[in-house]
């Protein structure tokens, strides 16, 4: 855990989920899983977030919202798609209003499958995301110094 960033704050957005995964995400905050022990805070605010955690596939209504939220998160940032719908569109993939997984709109770094995704899997995904975040931070710092 030494390399892992110590204070990843996340923003949770429900793109079109059935709420199954959302409940599991909130589960992670409960005493049993307690993600705060990793310093993770579920902020509700893109301006303060490092990790964008999205459940559900993207539809035409949520597409601009996902894009805007992503643009409002300061660099470095990572995106975690939670649940099979967010990864690929899931059972709703062929629906007329669904565009597909989150990666059809913004770049996704970690995919957490499951229907609904289990809290353990979500936590594991987030911890992986944190590792990627660290890499990105190094890159960002190098870029900044190069400038």
């Amino acid at each position, binding site marked *: 855990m030494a390399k892992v960033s110590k204070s990843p704050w996340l923003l949770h957005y429900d793109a079109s989920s059935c709420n199954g995964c959302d409940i599991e995400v909130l589960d992670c905050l409960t005493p049993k899983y307690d993600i705060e022990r990793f310093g993770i805070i579920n902020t509700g605010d893109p*301006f303060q977030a490092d990790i964008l955690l999205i459940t559900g596939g993207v539809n035409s209504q949520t597409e601009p*919202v996902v894009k805007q939220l992503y*643009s409002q998160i300061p660099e470095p940032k990572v995106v975690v798609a939670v649940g099979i719908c967010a990864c690929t569109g899931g059972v709703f993939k062929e629906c007329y209003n669904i565009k597909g997984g989150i990666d059809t709109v913004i770049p996704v770094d970690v995919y957490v499958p499951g229907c609904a995704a289990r809290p353990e899997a979500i936590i594991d995904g987030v911890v992986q995301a944190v590792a990627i975040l660290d890499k990105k931070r190094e890159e960002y710092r190098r870029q900044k110094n190069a400038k």
Partner: protein
Amino acid sequence: MGLIPVLIGVPAVFAVLLSFIRQEKARGVVVYVGAGSVMVLSLAFVASWIQNGSMIEKVYVNTEMVDHLMMVGEAFLMGLIVVLSIKYKRFFAALLSVAQTSLLFYVELTTDLPEAEHMLVDRLALLMCVIVAFVGGFICIYAVGYMKGYHHHHKEFKDRQPFFFSMLFFFLAAMFGLVLSLNLIWMYFFWEITSVISFLLIGYTRTEEAVRNSFTALWMNLLGGLGFAAGIAIMAFTIHSVQMSDLVLWGAPLPVACLCLAGLTKSAQLPFSSWLLGAMVAPTPSSALLHSATMVKAGVYLLIRLAPALNDTIVGLMVSLIGGFTFIAASMMAIAQNDGKKVLAFSTISNLGLIVACAGIGVEETVWGAVLLMIFHSVSKSMLFQSVGATENCLGSRDIEDMHGMLLRLPKLTYIMGIGIAGMYLAPFGMLISKWVALRAFVDSENVLLVIFIAFGSATTMFYWTKWLSKLISQHHARDNVTDVTRRDEYLSMFVHAGCMLLLCLLFPLLSTNLVDPIMLELFGYARPVLSMEVLNTMAIMLVSVGIVPLSMFFVSKAAHKQLVPIYMSGVNEGDDRYFVNSLGEPEHLYLSNWYLRYQFGMRRLMRPSIYFSAAILVVIFCLILGGAV
């Protein structure tokens, strides 16, 4: 002091002259010349006084001729009021006017008053003269530009500018007379003139509302005038003197209470506050000059003069309680107002309340605070009124809601307004320091109620100013652009005011030691420094830091490279920070409103109880005095 008649006479001559000039350009020139000469004269007056050794001077012993002229003048004023009251069928004002004028004539004709000086020149009077000359002079200059814009916007009102400017200059003359009078009958005469001019200016537009409000103002001020006349009559019959100084030495409760009643009505304290709120229908220059910067200060001036006689008496208790209560009640009601001028009116009433409370306690420290509050309040409030007036001419509204994001639309006016607002309540500006001294003095005088009033009152004061300021500073790009139609005359006046405000804050320690401490010496016969030098130094440091901190931070933050993104609106920002997508998928205009807490602090809820409460204080204490309990 040969300059006194000139000081009073020159504005009066200009007033007569202005009432004949119909041509706009010529009027502008005459106003500039008039205002300039008033300022120069007041400075010359101060200079000649300093040259004569800076002593308290009492002048004009034999003035039979002038006395008779004044009686004629009083009769004329009474006639004017009676005629207008009959014309508009509001007889109460006429009744009051006739009552007080006949009472005063009776006194003058029956009692034999010993010869004594009629006028007094001391530092307090000179200070008032300078305030009146400079604040008043610049407001007149402001009015040149403002009235053009006003009549450009309001075609429905008859253009009566010659009358308007003539009244402004008459008012200046009357104010000079008022602050220099030692003889109460003389002071009463000038007092009545200011009441009548205020009445005429409130009714300037002659709309039904204006007429109604002007009569409210008239009868309340006349009630005060009746108190004044009664006080004079009691003095004349009992101690055969109508000198202010004799009254302070004598200090009998009843006449002092009567004069205090006059002071309370003039400075619009509860229960007589409604006239000042109604007076806001008048064009802004008159609101700035009469209803915030100078005329209402006449009431406070009278109370400060009486302050040594108020210390530890039941009358002082009445005055300080009413003042303190007005301070908190008016500041609460200001929260619920969204009309810029109404907020200013309430804040004027509230600040005057604080000054009145200080005067009512009547010890050196509080009066020190009162004098400084008076100076700062005059300048910053006059500036605020002017900027709100100019804003109204630009935006077509003086609603604070419409001032959202004004910093980007009318930057110059916003800066002026911002300085005015900051001067009214922020540390380390003068108002706050004076408030601090007042608080300490209230504690020393062991008045728990006043301490609680000031503690709550300053919290509510902070609330309504902060929310106004935050409205101004919002970085919001409005759809329609506004052109700044403020004229050069208006900016000249406002910039000078803003400069004065900043300078006064910087020179605060000097102001305190060189001007206000000697005033205390004259009023009380002794003076010790109210603020220690250490405090004054801390203040100076503070003041510099208030200037320097944001400025240096400005450069620090400018150096930081940043990327601008749209504001957070749950991800449905339309992109320009003005619209968001609503639940029907359509763009919806974003509208941010201020907090007004109307149900809690609205006038409808608070006005009546506060009037009853303060009226009860007045009635009870008058009954106690009349009943001979004290």
